[in-house]
């Protein structure tokens, strides 16, 4: 009986730590979930290189089908980690990948993707990182899942994995995927 209260306190602490320490403090919840993708207008990076004047793409053109919007950069190591999986995903053709190249040089990007393959349908250049700020990006790679209405339904922080794709993202894309 003397030890009842300390034991209860100890059990409570163990429970708090058990659940609390499973959270990754680097994964911050995004306030953009359930909202329309923030507006932007960015130049499309031609891949391979082309002399034609660069086309531009706006957020409103992302509507119509579910998409993954992946913020990445050739200088980012986490992006190297996820690249093979993104290539696999692109080959299955289940979902279109829009790549937003964050604060990167086009030449570095082309060198990297030229060597390893390009999983992205369009690649957009966010040279100043301003669109990244509007989307609440705080460390590449980050991947947003957009539904056909252009609404953000999920955000994956860090390298994309087969597990995250299977358990979290594919179920959100509906029966077709």
């Amino acid at each position: 009986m003397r030890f009842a209260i300390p034991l209860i306190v100890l059990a409570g602490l163990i429970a708090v730590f058990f659940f609390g320490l499973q959270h990754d403090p680097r994964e911050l919840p995004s306030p953009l979930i359930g909202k329309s993708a923030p507006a932007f207008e960015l130049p499309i990076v031609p891949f391979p290189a082309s002399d034609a004047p660069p086309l531009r793409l706006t957020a409103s053109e992302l509507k119509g089908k579910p998409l993954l919007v992946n913020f990445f950069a050739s200088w980012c190591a986490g992006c190297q980690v996820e690249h093979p999986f993104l290539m696999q995903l692109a080959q299955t053709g289940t979902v279109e990948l829009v790549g937003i190249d964050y604060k990167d040089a086009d030449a570095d990007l082309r060198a990297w993707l030229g060597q390893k393959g390009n999983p992205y349908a369009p690649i957009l250049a966010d040279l100043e990182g301003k669109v990244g700020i509007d989307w609440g990006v705080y460390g590449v790679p980050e991947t947003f899942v957009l539904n056909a209405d252009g609404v953000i339904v999920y955000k994956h922080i860090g390298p994309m994995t087969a597990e995250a794709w299977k358990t979290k993202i594919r179920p959100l894309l509906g029966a077709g995927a």
Partner: protein
Amino acid sequence: MIRRLMSGLAFVITATNVQAQVVTEKPPIPLTAEQDVRFRELLPDLRCLVCQNESIADSTAPLALDLKYEVRGLVAQGKSEREIKKYLTDRYGDFVLFRPPFDARTALLWLGPGLLVLLGLLALVLHVRRTRQAHAPSGPVDAAALKKLLDEQP
């Protein structure tokens, strides 16, 4: 487990690789003396999302520098502190504020320490009372008997 280690490793490598990102030259934003004071007062309240326990004022992370620049621009446009904080929380959530607003989600965060102190005080009061009762004198002191006892000492 291995995956966790891998992503941890990836994070470390990312952190050391950050220098390779492109830094664009941005035009300086002039501030009036009054705006400069507001700008400096605002920054320590804003959390750097990369280093997490540093403020945007102290951090040299590229994102912190970018956000500092955005905030400077908003101050120059004459936006209020409230509008600027909303600009940031709309994008990054309450985490970007060192002092998040009080609401249902943050109630435990704000009240928790006070509740713990109250619980501790309650436990202390109960404990003191119990020990006091255990050591309380059994009855009134008989002054004459006490004096007699003392006088007997050599």
